[in-house]
């Protein structure tokens, strides 16, 4: 994934965007083989909640519709069930592509992307993963709730209070400092280097 901006199609079926996606998105080169059969969109557990579904989204990529693609809710509604991946007759890694498109949408700063639940959750999640090397489910959840603002944080926290208490009671959630890797510095260095390589790659 490059940090540089993906080109938008100047007009319908301008291939600049499609070619960029083919080259830069994880699994993008296989997307070229999509034959628009619809198995992916039909397989999706929450396909009815998607505006376009992966199949049409891929057609839109070919049509150069960058903005429509990156503001689509399809990339945010993926539940990562991999039904589409295993059923795709052309072996297009649909899930991976949707994930990478989500990353792209965030990178490109689309408002829809920033507002998406996944993006908020991912922010919280990555904060924990990068900082502690581990996911602290309690902190990630709270940070995620907080991203909606204080009011929402309190509201959601209350709604899930019973669950949280149950989890604590059954020792599936702990209070106090989060678990963390022993060599946090080491991990930070690796992640920083990785981010640097990625930023440089297409620079």
């Amino acid at each position, binding site marked *: *994934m490059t940090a540089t901006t993906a080109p938008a199609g100047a007009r319908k079926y301008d291939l600049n965007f499609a070619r960029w996606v083919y080259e830069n998105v*994880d699994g993008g080169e296989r997307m070229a083989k999509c034959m628009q059969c619809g198995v992916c969109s039909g397989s999706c*557990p*929450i396909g009815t*909640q998607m505006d376009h579904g992966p199949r049409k989204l891929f057609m839109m990529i070919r049509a150069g519709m960058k903005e429509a693609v990156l503001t689509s809710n399809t990339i945010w*509604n*993926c*539940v*990562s*069930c*991999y*039904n589409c*991946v*295993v059923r795709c007759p052309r072996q297009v*890694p649909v899930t991976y592509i949707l*994930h*990478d498109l*989500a*990353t792209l949408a965030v990178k490109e700063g689309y408002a829809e992307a920033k507002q998406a*639940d*996944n*993006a*908020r*959750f*991912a*922010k919280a*999640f*990555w904060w*924990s*993963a*990068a900082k502690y*090397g*581990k*996911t*602290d*489910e*309690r902190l990630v*959840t709270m940070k*995620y709730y907080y991203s909606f603002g204080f009011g929402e944080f309190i509201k959601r926290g209350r709604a899930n209070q*019973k*669950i949280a208490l149950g*989890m604590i009671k*059954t020792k*599936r*959630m*702990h209070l106090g400092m989060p*678990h963390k*890797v*022993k*060599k946090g510095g*080491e*991990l930070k*260095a*690796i*992640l920083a*280097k*990785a*981010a640097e*390589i*990625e930023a440089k790659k297409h620079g």
Partner: protein
Amino acid sequence: MTKKFTYYPGCSSEGSAAHLDKSLRAIAPKLGVELEDIADWNCCGASVGHIEGGHLPMMALSGRNLAQAQAQGPQDVATPCAACYLNTHHCNEQMRASERLKAEVNEALSAASMNYDANLHVRHICEVLVNDIGFEAVEAQVVKPLKGLKVAGYVGCQTVRPFAATERGGAYDEYDQPKFLDNFTRAVGAEALDFQNRTACCGGSVSVMSPEKTLHLMKNILEEAQEKGADVISTPCPLCQTNVEMFQDQINAQFGTNFQIPVVFYSQLMAVAFGLDADKDAALNQQLIPAPQIAKAAGG
């Protein structure tokens, strides 16, 4: 006869799926499996890490784990968590397939003077149990068969998809109606229900962040289990277990249902059937919805 694996427990082992970790560690010796933890394992990035972290940092997370595993020996890496398996296996296979990616990951790892040659094999514990241990070996350890316990085997998505039928994934089952979990159920002497929703999605991480989008998915799963008279739902997946268990109150509130179905890990059933302690080993005291039926079946 003991077979050693480098073990990657994953973050949920220290949180929501502690009971999977505990029960698994309890049954492993009985099945001749030695689990040696990756010394300083880190998070795999789960299904959202890439969004914020980016593609290569995401790969680097797995890369660090694998580099450590490599240092610990050539034995296969095993993990019980679907998400950990997906990310680690995927990263491993991608690194094996792409010299470019391998070089990039190693460049990142070099920041901590680490390196990974991509020669290991990352495997799901369930696949290990099927291919290396076998149902007969599980059966052989059963001292308290769970007679009459009706189990809805809920495999979920990521345990089998997208790798269970691939060669490197161990080709141990199929994607739509996998059989391994029901075979585990039968091996411990319980009754495996014909559960059509066995690979229906619970909503995964979307359920955690936006349950309103996915409660109906979990409702469908619970509904079938209830209709078919399931005593418990058994699953191999940490997130499935948590989602399907913890949202039952919210589902009941929203849909007017009255679900109160225990959701347990296959490893907990095994632990009980192997005659181990219900709480200390099987970790049944870590259920949000208690499952006294299991002990009853074992003790009866």
